[in-house]
């Protein structure tokens, strides 16, 4: 099969790889019909997430049709499924409480040690997202082995096109959970840093969950325009002192909740971000956490901080004093995707949400390298890339 593979920092190549087969009884093999490049794939592409090896197959946003099943799978051949990026067993203590991204059993023991040293515990498995999360092959390929196929995939109807369903695999539930973590009350003002796909879905979700106002912060005019199209008030950080701007826009109170949809690769020329970038470049640190620092400072006293953005290491100058003294609540985590897919699928079926507005480019899988390059380097118009194998 053909698959988009990591060949080194900034180097993606579509290569011929062996077809996956059923390994465990609960496995299924899915023939991919659509797959997308996620903003967090760029962390792998840029080499800031450790544990990515040459020839690793990338991609954790994908959907397709079942072409083979293990003896314990409940899927049937030909069924159409969206596959959540978090791999979970469905039986452990964490899964019993729907904390799927904290599953105890889905990361192979051989790949647990680095994460255990770095984070205190091994992580759950994820598709195509480094050996820190299990080393599973990803979905930017013609075929994917899907473990625990009796619990992970979301079965979807045949009459809805891929474009409207694909983002159930990650970014739509991620935006939804980001808004839930912000614990929005009716009429709240929410500030969202980052108008990439997750940020835009966070904005959309915040309005659906009752926000009165959403302030969208980014430095890319095209993305700010999309946020404005969703009803948010755009603020360009190149032109605005963010802390001052947010105080003015909220009558001196500050946003009720803040959402960091950026994560470990903050942009901008603030001193802390420049220092972080230097440390990241020389390997002394992994996270450029400027946005998180700013969001914590901007949030009103007693407010909520939601962090869907991906972080992988440690951040200096973290404003712990502001977090504590202002009585903020911080909620974060990889998305428990499958907890939300039924509800979101229902909203898609009822035309309450149509996530396909996000797609800016469609490419064949063979153009994956161009897709990655442009998605990173031309953020103004390359909002979301969907590929068809």
């Amino acid at each position, binding site marked *: 099969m053909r698959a988009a593979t990591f060949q080194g920092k900034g180097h993606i190549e579509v290569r011929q790889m*062996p*077809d*996956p*087969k*059923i*390994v*465990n*009884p*609960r496995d299924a093999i899915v023939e991919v019909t659509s797959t997308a490049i996620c903003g967090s794939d760029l962390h792998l592409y840029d080499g800031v997430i450790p544990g990515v090896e040459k020839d690793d197959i990338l991609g954790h946003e994908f959907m397709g049709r079942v072409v083979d099943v293990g003896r*314990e799978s409940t899927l049937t051949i030909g069924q159409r499924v969206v596959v959540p990026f978090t791999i979970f*067993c*469905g*039986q*452990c*203590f964490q899964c*019993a409480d729907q904390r799927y991204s904290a599953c*105890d*059993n*889905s*990361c*192979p*023991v*051989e*790949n*647990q*040690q680095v994460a255990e040293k770095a984070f205190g515990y091994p992580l759950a*498995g994820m598709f195509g997202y480094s050996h820190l999360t*299990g*080393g*599973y*092959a990803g979905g930017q390929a013609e075929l994917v*082995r899907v*473990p*625990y196929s009796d619990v992970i995939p979301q079965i979807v109807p045949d009459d809805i096109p891929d474009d409207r369903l694909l983002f159930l695999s990650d970014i739509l539930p991620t935006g939804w959970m980001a808004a839930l973590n912000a614990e929005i009350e009716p009429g709240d003002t929410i500030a969202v840093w980052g108008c990439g796909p997750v940020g835009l879905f966070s904005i959309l979700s915040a309005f659906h969950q009752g926000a009165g106002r959403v302030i969208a912060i980014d430095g890319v005019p095209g993305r700010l325009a999309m946020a404005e199209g969703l009803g948010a008030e755009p603020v360009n950080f190149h032109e605005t002192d963010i802390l001052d701007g947010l105080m003015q826009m909220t009558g001196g109170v500050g946003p009720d909740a803040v959402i960091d949809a950026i994560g470990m690769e903050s942009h901008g020329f603030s001193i802390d971000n420049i220092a972080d970038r230097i440390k990241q470049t020389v390997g002394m640190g992994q996270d450029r956490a400027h946005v998180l620092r700013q969001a914590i400072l901007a949030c009103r006293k007693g407010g909520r901080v939601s962090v869907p953005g991906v972080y992988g290491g440690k951040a200096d100058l973290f404003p712990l004093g502001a977090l504590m003294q202002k009585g903020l609540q911080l909620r974060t985590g990889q998305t428990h995707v499958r907890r939300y897919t039924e509800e979101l699928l229902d909203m898609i079926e009822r035309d309450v949400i149509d996530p396909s507005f996000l797609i800016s480019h469609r490419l064949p899988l063979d153009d994956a390298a161009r897709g990655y390059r442009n998605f990173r380097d031309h953020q103004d118009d390359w909002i979301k890339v969907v590929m068809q194998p």
Partner: protein
Amino acid sequence: MNLANWARYGLAATLATAAGGVLMIRRPTHANHDAAPARSARHARRFGDYRVTGATVSIRATPEQILDCWQSDPQLWRDLEYLPIPEGNQPDLLLPSAELRAMASRPLLIRIVTRREGELIAWASEGDDHADMHGRMRLHDNGAKGIAVEVIMAVRPRDFASTLKTEAMMAEALKLGILRDLRRMKMLIETGEIATARMRPDAA
């Protein structure tokens, strides 16, 4: 600063250093090892000649299911690295698994020495005068998290730490190996399979 001041400050620094040194030497050692749970004591992970290490996991199953998996599931046995496995026909004997065999400097005969139904199995290797290795698996209730399964193994470094592995490396390998074995057992019991990222049954 004149010479007299240098001498004064130098003398003060020397006296302070000496006093500190005396205090360090006279300071009582961390004698109360019992304050730390078993193998987690910071200052003494030895018990006599033995190096003590181990791991704990919680499994959502009954004690009987857990012991049954360990004692009779060949799928688990294939993957175990350090946890000994039951010897087919002799209920009192355990077979050292592959890594444990490779680590020991001589053949190991491991015999079950204590068995408390649904609660504890303890074993020891048979040696010339005393055992090269002791171990035990203890099960206790951990509420909604399931049954806590703790394995502790005590080995004599001179019989396990080869010239290629120092005592600390041996203990670390053993600790990691036991943890991995217990997690494999947890996976198998809770999910019916052991997680793997392999794309094909025949892949490395």
